[in-house]
């Protein structure tokens, strides 16, 4: 019974924490904002350092933060843009494995992973911009031809990047040391900075993959798009399982799982917090802008959006790219923060991939607050509370949580179909409500006075 109470307290505390953070971020005074954010970071950091939060809680916290980023990305794609996607988990996996591989090679005296992804991301970025500008001039190119052009450019850029990486990686050999005896660049602060860069690179890599994948696939109708993205998640998972045989990455060890993924350790909460905050801020700024309005308009009515001068294909692609960027960042953060230094393809199967979808529906489609709250609630409820609670009833009992959980979801959908928080947003995430003009306000008041 104690445990049940404690779990409830934890969930309430987490929700209060999120509310407080959003309130502070939404504050108009800049110093309050900075102080509040520092405080929000500090509280958890102290609780982690003094081990008030156990290793178990710590695992839940980092997992929930990673899931928050992934689910926010999916909410952008499905909740705000209306494109039913099951591919989010694939991008999550790509982010996790990319960043894990960069860091693994780095601490084992090989900079080629870092350099290849760095050059690859930059060069492919240029290719995408260049080909895009070219296609703007040459009109009427069918989507598949455009895709082929992009793909050829990407393959070429990738080959150049890998070549350059192998050419330049010996330069780092001295600083990185060898396996077992890491040099100055492969430990301490430089390693922590590498984590920061590699998380961003992993996110950018996911985003570029999503651009190439989304270009042809987003022209499909809603349901077909869902199936295609499900296929994407399965393809990514299959590649992970066979990464040491059909892909040239022996260190990923295929289906056995990647061991020895470098961990952020004492810096973990700092990076997790920074990235989660960045994702939340970027997404909120995107949603509450002119582009964000077009993203929502496409969800509401595609034909009307077209007739109002909105480039539908571009808008869908944009939402998809940003969603995948967030997923990639979430995956990379997850790979380095859990503390187990182990990545298994089993984490990235398509069945688990329904989790973000469940979270965003649970929290409310089109509600950022709902997604954040549901991500934390989901992890603490499913993993934290139910697993331990049922564990006390017997060894087989934890299996029941996958019965209790869908029932909870079912009940919620019956009672509150718009999701837990519906369209409610807290503090920082609220859309600015433009006040009525003075004369208009007076008119409205007069109208209501007349009616009453």
């Amino acid at each position, binding site marked *: 019974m104690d445990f049940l109470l404690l779990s409830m307290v934890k969930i309430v505390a987490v929700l209060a924490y999120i509310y407080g953070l959003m309130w502070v971020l939404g504050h108009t005074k800049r110093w309050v904002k900075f102080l509040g954010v520092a405080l929000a970071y500090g509280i958890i950091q102290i609780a982690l350092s003094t081990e008030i939060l156990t290793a178990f809680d710590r695992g839940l916290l980092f997992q929930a933060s990673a899931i928050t980023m992934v689910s926010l990305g999916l909410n952008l794609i499905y909740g705000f843009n209306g494109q039913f996607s099951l591919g989010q988990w694939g991008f999550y996996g790509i982010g996790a494995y990319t960043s894990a591989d960069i860091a693994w090679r780095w601490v084992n005296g090989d900079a080629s992973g870092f350099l290849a992804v760095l050059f690859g991301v930059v060069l492919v970025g240029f290719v995408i911009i260049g080909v895009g500008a070219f296609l703007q001039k040459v009109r009427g190119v069918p989507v598949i031809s455009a895709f082929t052009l992009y793909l050829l450019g990407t393959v070429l850029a990738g080959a150049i990047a890998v070549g350059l990486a192998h050419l330049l990686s010996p330069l780092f050999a001295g600083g990185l040391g060898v396996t077992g005896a890491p040099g100055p660049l492969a430990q301490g602060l430089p390693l922590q900075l590498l984590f920061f860069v590699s998380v961003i690179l992993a996110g950018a890599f996911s985003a570029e993959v999503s651009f190439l994948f989304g270009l042809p696939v987003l022209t499909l109708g809603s349901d077909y798009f869902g199936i295609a993205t499900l296929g994407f998640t399965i393809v990514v998972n299959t590649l992970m399982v066979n990464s040491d045989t059909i892909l040239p990455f022996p260190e990923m060890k295929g289906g056995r799982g990647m061991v020895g993924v470098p961990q952020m350790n004492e810096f973990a909460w700092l990076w997790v917090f920074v990235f989660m905050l960045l994702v939340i801020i*970027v997404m909120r700024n995107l949603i509450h*802008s002119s582009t964000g309005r077009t993203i929502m308009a496409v969800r509401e009515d595609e034909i*009307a959006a*077209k*007739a109002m001068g909105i*480039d539908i294909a571009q808008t869908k692609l944009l939402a998809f790219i940003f969603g995948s960027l967030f997923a990639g960042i979430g995956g990379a953060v997850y790979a380095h923060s859990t503390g187990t230094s182990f990545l298994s393809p089993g984490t990235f199967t398509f069945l688990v991939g329904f989790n973000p979808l469940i979270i965003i529906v649970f929290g409310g489609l089109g509600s950022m607050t709902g997604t954040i709250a549901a991500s934390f609630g989901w992890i603490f409820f499913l993993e934290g509370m139910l697993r331990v609670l049922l564990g006390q009833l017997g060894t087989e009992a934890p299996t029941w949580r996958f019965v209790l959980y869908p029932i909870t979801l079912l009940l919620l959908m019956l009672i509150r179909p718009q999701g837990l928080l519906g369209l409610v947003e807290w503090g920082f995430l609220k859309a600015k409500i433009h006040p009525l*003009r003075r004369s208009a306000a007076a008119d409205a008041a007069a109208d209501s006075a007349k009616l009453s």
Partner: protein
Amino acid sequence: MNTPQQPLLNIQGLTKFFGGLCAVKDFSMTLNAGDLAGLIGPNGAGKTTAFNLITGIYHPTQGEIDFNGESMVGLEPFEITRKGIGRTFQNIRLFPNLTVLDNVCVSYHPHAGYNLVDSILRNHRYGAREKELVERAQDFLAIFKLEGIQNEQAKNLPYGEQRRVEIARALACNPRLLLLDEPAAGMNPREIVDLMEMIHFIRDRFGLTILLIEHQMRFVMGICEKLTVMDFGEVIARGTPKEIQDDPRVVEAYLGKGAAHVS
């Protein structure tokens, strides 16, 4: 560029087949700047298809559409809108879960004046332009007497107000030619009188050319300066409302053969 001799909209030989069905056949029409013209005809005559062809929702099988001296055939709908053709829909297509203000602001997107990077960084340009954009939209709503309901979700509005929001949203695209698809559908006689006043008002205020589809004859005859009548995808008559009323082919199309003798 647009000399008085050159028509604003010039459609020649427009034809659209859906499979074997010919929805619009050899449709031609010319509109000069400032015209207020009507397109009428019985149900299924191909009027809305003609609108969808002009705005690029469908691509024509054959024919030419010149707007302001430029060919519109093969352009995407959003490009056609940005060139200056706005439209409303027969069955209202607002963005139901967005507020009235956001509905109008969406149309401003192509000329919002700030880009994605500005919005993510929330820099000064974003602040200034967004404020300007919202103010412009509010001014706009004031013209249509919608300023009091700017924060309502569009789906919660009564029918007449939804129509007005739709027209406001189309005008926010800054068009030179406005296509109205049955603007008076479902309106009561008083609302129709208001609508007629409003259409005259927006034409003068924004220097528009207006082409509208309508079934309510009182409305069409009262407001349009010239009419084109379609039946079975073909133009069967054109002229002033007076000429159209007396045209036996039009009476036949609406009431059937022999009706002309009865009246």
